[in-house]
């Protein structure tokens, strides 16, 4: 089983002479990107069928880019450390709050066997008051910070996002120069500027889940029942859940247990999302075997 690229050619969607907000629209409609995503899904599907032996613990070198215009946005090293610790707990099922799981889901709550090692924190002062999802924060030319070796590192940008957005990610298969995740500074880590109900670092857990190819648990079809997250052990679910739902919350005839609103890939509050499933862990492992295999290679030689 081989994975032959599926990576968008550099510069295929970026036109620095044009306006930045065009970028996202181009990415979404770019046939090269659509083809890359299709290849990744085929690879992931085959990987699930072939049931390869576990990868063992994979440690992902992580660079945090703090981009700030007001002093409070320049989050401290302690807050950065709190976020890395949360990622390491959540992806290893070492989070204490896994205890809140309804018993029915305890057996599928997975240790994804992925850890994160902070290798650098960059700090950039910017004139940009709030960043949009046009990826400006990922570019020094647009007032942000360029990614560091995104093929072998997770790049995590912390900044003020506009529009009340908590964070956003990029799936495997997108352009390297924008690869990584972005989190607003009030939803980053669990100390300092982290603000309830998004003060337990779960925005980063959710975004890194996307970065490792996880889809939203409701299947990204609005409130419909036809969407799929391509994971077998998550229930079919209508739309996203918000806040702290009460078990059981039934939609799409998924009773008696209902929506898995405790999953990191729902839209619940930080204190309500506490697990990945085994199926999600396998999907992330497939991302590491395929489109993100450079991370594995780098980890093996480090």
């Amino acid at each position: 089983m081989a994975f032959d690229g599926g990576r968008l050619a550099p510069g295929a969607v970026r036109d620095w002479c044009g306006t930045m907000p065009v970028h996202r629209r181009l990415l979404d409609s770019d046939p090269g990107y659509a083809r890359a995503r299709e290849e990744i899904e085929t690879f992931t599907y085959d990987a699930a069928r072939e049931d390869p032996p576990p990868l063992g613990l994979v440690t992902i070198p992580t660079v945090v880019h703090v981009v700030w215009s007001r002093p409070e946005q320049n989050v401290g090293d302690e807050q950065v450390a709190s976020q890395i610790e949360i990622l390491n707990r959540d992806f290893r099922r070492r989070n204490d709050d896994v205890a809140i799981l309804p018993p029915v889901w305890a057996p599928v709550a997975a240790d994804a066997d992925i850890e994160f090692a902070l290798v650098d924190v960059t700090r950039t002062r910017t004139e940009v008051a709030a960043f949009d999802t046009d990826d400006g924060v990922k570019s020094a030319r647009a007032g942000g910070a360029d990614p560091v070796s995104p093929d072998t590192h997770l790049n995590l940008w912390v900044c003020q996002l506009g529009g009340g957005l908590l964070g956003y990610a990029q799936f495997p298969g997108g352009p390297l120069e924008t690869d990584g995740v972005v989190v607003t500074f009030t939803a980053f880590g669990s100390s300092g500027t982290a603000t309830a109900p998004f003060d337990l670092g779960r925005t980063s857990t959710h975004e890194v889940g996307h970065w490792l190819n996880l889809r939203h648990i409701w299947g990204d079809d609005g409130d419909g029942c036809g969407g799929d997250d391509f994971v077998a052990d998550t229930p079919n679910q209508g739309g996203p859940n918000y806040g702290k739902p009460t078990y059981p919350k039934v939609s799409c005839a998924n009773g008696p247990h209902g929506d898995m609103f405790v999953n990191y890939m729902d839209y619940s509050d930080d204190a309500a999302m506490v697990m990945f499933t085994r199926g999600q862990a396998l999907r992330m492992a497939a991302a590491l075997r395929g489109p993100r295999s450079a991370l594995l290679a780098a980890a093996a030689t480090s």
Partner: protein
Amino acid sequence: MTPPPAALFRRWVHVREEDAEGVRVYRPADRPLPPARGRDGIEFRPDGTFADLRPGPTDAPVASVGRWTAPARDRLALAYPPGARSAGAPTGYEIVELTPDLLRLRAV
């Protein structure tokens, strides 16, 4: 057809925690807003189009562009592109309140 007030023409973010009695509350996208997972939004443009903004598969908002008409000064009728109207999305609004800082819409 009477055109809607010029203040309408900007990008608005739905602050659903402020919704009350069937009225949706929107705030300007370029002002500080309380963060939340999965905010939707709407952008009205003077050229007769609107962008329906929904969280996409990696959380960045994704726009579907449709056309608005104004049957009355405080009424908006929305036509979505084929397949883009999500279940339950209104096809008409009454403008309950419109200021530079606030838009309140009731689905009709």
